[in-house]
């Protein structure tokens, strides 16, 4: 299932994260699980703010990486769904609010 391009996502506020060596480490305190994001994942993670839509995130990928709009949208959707399955992000529609 592809997340719609107009949908907006936000980070789980319970998480701790740091960027190091162009990668992002995310810790989920409740289950002590560590997640790692590569360069592209880190770029998207930094830009997930509860305001930008999936389509806008994909546009940022196109502007910063050598990738076509179609691939950028597909990659963004796949990454967000993967993050969602790990409870790293949630849609604004799910939470009902834009979290700080």
């Amino acid at each position: 299932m592809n997340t719609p391009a107009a949908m907006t996502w936000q980070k789980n506020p319970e998480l701790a994260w740091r960027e190091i060596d162009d990668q992002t480490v995310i810790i989920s305190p409740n289950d002590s699980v560590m997640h790692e994001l590569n360069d592209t994942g880190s770029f998207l993670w930094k830009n997930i703010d509860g305001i930008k839509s999936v389509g806008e995130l994909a546009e940022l990928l196109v502007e910063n990486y050598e990738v076509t709009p179609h691939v950028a949208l597909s990659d963004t959707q796949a990454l967000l769904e993967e993050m969602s399955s790990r409870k790293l992000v949630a849609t604004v529609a799910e939470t009902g609010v834009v979290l700080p």
Partner: protein
Amino acid sequence: MNAPLANPGRDFGQQFEFSIGCVPLCLEMSDLRLYGAALARYAAFTSAAEKPIHIALNNAAPPERALPDFAYEFEGAALRAFSSDIRFDGVRNQYALDSLVRVFLSWKLLEHQGFLLHAATVMQGEKAYIFTGRSGAGKSTVASLSPAGSVLTDEISLLRREEGGWRAYGTPFWGEFKAAGSNSSAPVAGIFRLLQATENRVELLRPMTILRTLLPNVLFFSADAEANRRLLEILSRAATEIKGYNLSFSKNAAFWEVLPA
């Protein structure tokens, strides 16, 4: 070194003051058996700091106050850290006491840019070498192959950032050595991830790999998001500022020859 302190307490029979990693603590208790256990366990770490952190041990007085800043339970023993005081309750033996002291320290060290790490620390040439890895990786073997008196701990190391650099402290938390620990410290020379191998060799690691090595070996028990953010910030700083290496380790004393000075 100061003699262990045994003073009449306020509402408690005994007080015992000690310091681990420059974090001064004062256990207040009425149970002479626990007092004896604390005395034996932390004898090498006794101190008389001006303002130790007071910990009420098994004080029956019920707390009527707000939620604690940090709480943890372990096999019936409970730690509750309020802004004004610290309480350990349900502590029946030295093992429970030792566990709560570790848990409390792991949380308190956040204020001091520090953390506890599953690692052996050995001093060589006035510097501290940190050897980390999962159980069985060789921490105790490293300790057993090191000169007498040079091992600060064979199980749980304490690292703090002080005056722009990192310093490792001995702890009373030991593994197979079952010794009293060494209450001394030294600047950190490096962090070495132990890998069993047929020859001794070191390989410099990138900060991300060092962080990846530290995270599963750090002792931390708070599920609070802000506390975890602070921990991750401290660990990221350590991974960036301390040199880290893979140490292929063939479990003989010749490994010292391949370590960087």
